[in-house]
């Protein structure tokens, strides 16, 4: 049981490439934190630095209050699950799981008991005598998780553990990992590039881009209050639409006018207060595809902005339609009900939900409408309680 604290952690590779810059992160005990971001954003490097597999160029990492910068991986009391499982091919599953305990000179009885318990939790009791070669991908992944949990470490690290599995198995394993966290009540740090995994698993999510932490927040706050344009575009599928334009003062109120003058979105009084400094300046409007409605379903929207746009492409998902629109220089995506009649090539009248839009600085990309902090503290009450506590 331990918290993990990163202070100004940097990683500079030999060629001078900065993989991670000034990473600041406080992970509470028993918390499930997910590091997410596009490839090359430094999330795996951060995880490997916590594990001790990469040297830390600057800053400190503390596990359970102990600075571990110069502590060998084996003495950090952590366990890691790798993307390609990294099972020892010449050992049976039992030997794979017992390896760490054997090296730590646990008595034989204790080893057998712990492995049997872990195997039972993961449903792999029948596979213990097999070698990894004789297992399917999902089974291998379970053995790899089993190898991590038999040691009862302070912190679990997962490096894209599900990305080698097929889609169906991935969902199953995701649910099981969630249950495992509830059951073990141990700190877990999880790296993925899949935002759905991140949103479903994490108590808090750390979004990284180009080696920098963009935002740390719970899944819902990330979606509702993205700190900047990168976070807004990374969370949610299809991604948030961005429209360039200016804020125009209209008496007391403000109105967003998109480039070309066709898209006009009125701004409510509350939001206008926050944006008053930016009147007359170029700005970026962000709206999620699910907040763009057709005329019928848009009737219920309180603050509606009418936009007429040409339908370019229609993708049918069964329960929904993803529609690509073009309006002058703007292109955007809307998520409509499957039964709305849409014809490509035809103009269509749309309703933007003006209460759900975000405004971003044109250059910095900072979100102007939400006064959120980059770092959100963990909600300690929600964390799983250790058994017997």
């Amino acid at each position, binding site marked *: 049981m331990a918290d993990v604290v990163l202070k100004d952690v940097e990683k500079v590779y030999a060629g001078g490439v900065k993989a991670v810059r000034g990473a600041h992160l406080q992970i509470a005990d028993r918390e499930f934190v997910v590091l997410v971001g596009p490839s090359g954003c430094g999330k795996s490097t951060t995880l490997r630095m916590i594990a001790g597999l990469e040297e830390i160029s600057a800053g400190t990492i503390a596990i359970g209050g102990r600075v571990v910068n110069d502590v060998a*991986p084996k003495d950090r009391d952590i366990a*890691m699950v790798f993307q390609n499982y990294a099972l*020892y091919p010449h050992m049976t599953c039992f030997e794979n799981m017992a390896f760490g305990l054997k090296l730590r000179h646990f008595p034989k009885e204790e080893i057998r008991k712990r492995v049997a318990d872990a195997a039972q939790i993961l449903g792999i009791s029948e596979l213990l005598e097999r070698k990894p070669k004789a297992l399917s991908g999902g089974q291998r992944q379970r053995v790899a998780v089993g190898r991590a949990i038999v040691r009862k470490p302070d912190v679990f690290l997962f490096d894209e553990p599900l990305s080698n599995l097929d889609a169906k198995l991935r969902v199953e394993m995701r649910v099981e990992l969630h249950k495992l966290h509830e059951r073990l009540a141990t700190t877990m740090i999880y790296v993925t590039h899949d935002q759905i995994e991140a949103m479903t698993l994490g108590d808090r999510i750390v979004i990284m881009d180009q080696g920098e932490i963009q935002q740390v927040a719970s899944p819902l706050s990330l979606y509702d209050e993205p700190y900047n344009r990168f976070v807004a575009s990374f969370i949610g599928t299809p991604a948030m639409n961005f429209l360039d334009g200016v804020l125009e003062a209209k008496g007391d109120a403000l109105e967003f006018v998109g480039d070309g003058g066709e898209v006009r979105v009125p701004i409510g009084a509350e939001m206008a207060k926050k944006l008053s400094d930016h009147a007359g300046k170029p700005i970026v409007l962000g709206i999620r595809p699910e907040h763009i409605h057709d005329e019928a379903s848009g009737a219920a929207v309180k603050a509606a902005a009418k936009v007429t746009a040409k339908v370019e492409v229609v993708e049918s998902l069964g329960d929904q339609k993803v529609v690509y629109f073009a309006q002058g220089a703007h292109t955007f995506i809307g998520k409509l009900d499957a039964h709305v009649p849409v014809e490509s090539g035809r103009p269509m009248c749309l309703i933007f939900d003006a209460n759900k839009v975000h405004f971003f600085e044109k250059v910095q990309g900072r979100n102007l409408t939400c006064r959120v902090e980059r770092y959100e503290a963990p909600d300690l009450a929600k964390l799983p309680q250790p058994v017997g506590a």
Partner: protein
Amino acid sequence: MNAMKAQIPMLLWIYCALSILLLLAVRRTRHYPLYILKSVWIGFTVLAFVWVVLMSGATNQEFALRPASVFGELSEYPYTFRSLYGFHSWYLPLLLWLPLWSWAGKAERGSRLRKGLWVALGALTLFFLVPLLLIFKRFDWSAYSHFGENYAHAWRVARMGDYFFNSILVSACAVGLSTIVGSMAAYALARLPFRGREALIAALVGSMAIPGFLLVVPLYVMMRSWSVGNFSFMDSRVGLSILYAATSLPFTIFLLTAFFRSLPSELAEAAALDGATPLQIFSQIYFPLAAPGLATAAIFNFLGVWNEYNFALVFVTNPEFRTLPVGLYNLQVSQQYAVNWPALFAGIVLLCLPTFAIFVALQEKIVAGLTVGGVKG
């Protein structure tokens, strides 16, 4: 006779080079006609060995009179064929054999045509084997019953038994030593980042280009002056083993570095997190996983060391410690004008048996191990 003697090593070299080329070509191109060529080639090798084995059971006089032995009688084949079947074209069945074989191979599995073709092929084979068997039967085998006597002579009088033991001892020590040291060095070169690693690998590869015989004089000087207490590198089986191990190290390291590189590095990381020290990661994870590569390296080194002649000749002068190749040569030289050829052949068989057995049994594996690292395994 002398002119022929001078030709033999050259021919042997060409033969070896062609064999290796052929094996590699077959593996690389997967061109199936080449497989037939390979089989024929291996057939010739086996025949040559059979001849040596035959001769090791003959008398000296038989060797002088009929050096080609039963193979010399093969020229009788057309005549035997004609007298047996009554027609001249003895080569016809042979010509028919190959197309029939390929047709049978291509015919649908389990079909009646295929079965029929196989029966026809069998009959045809029998057809041209019968005259051959007749020749074999007619041959006077009475001169080839001296195996026991010849081998006993080689083993005891010519001291091949002692030399065999020396060879086994030296080869085993050298191969063991070079495998252990080489695998550790290769692991370090493949896995541990340190300054000058590339230069070290380059130096090792470069050192493979130096012919061992060039080193004889400096080695002689060094080994004579290096002695610890009673131990001297000269005239010692341990000294010779160490020398062999050292000379086979560059190749071993080169081969195994490629092998270790082909193993995933996550295993080391997983083991490090599991609590293994670097030495444990090597000995418990990577060493067992490198078994195929280790086997290839060990077999190659064994073949090299077992047949080594130059170093064994120069650095061991005490007859007690001679290895087989030197002993064999000595047998021939010491008898000079009254050579007991069959005993010499018996010695050759003893020398060849281990290597021949290894090569026949593991030939595919050796080539497979050599190509590791080329493709991601």
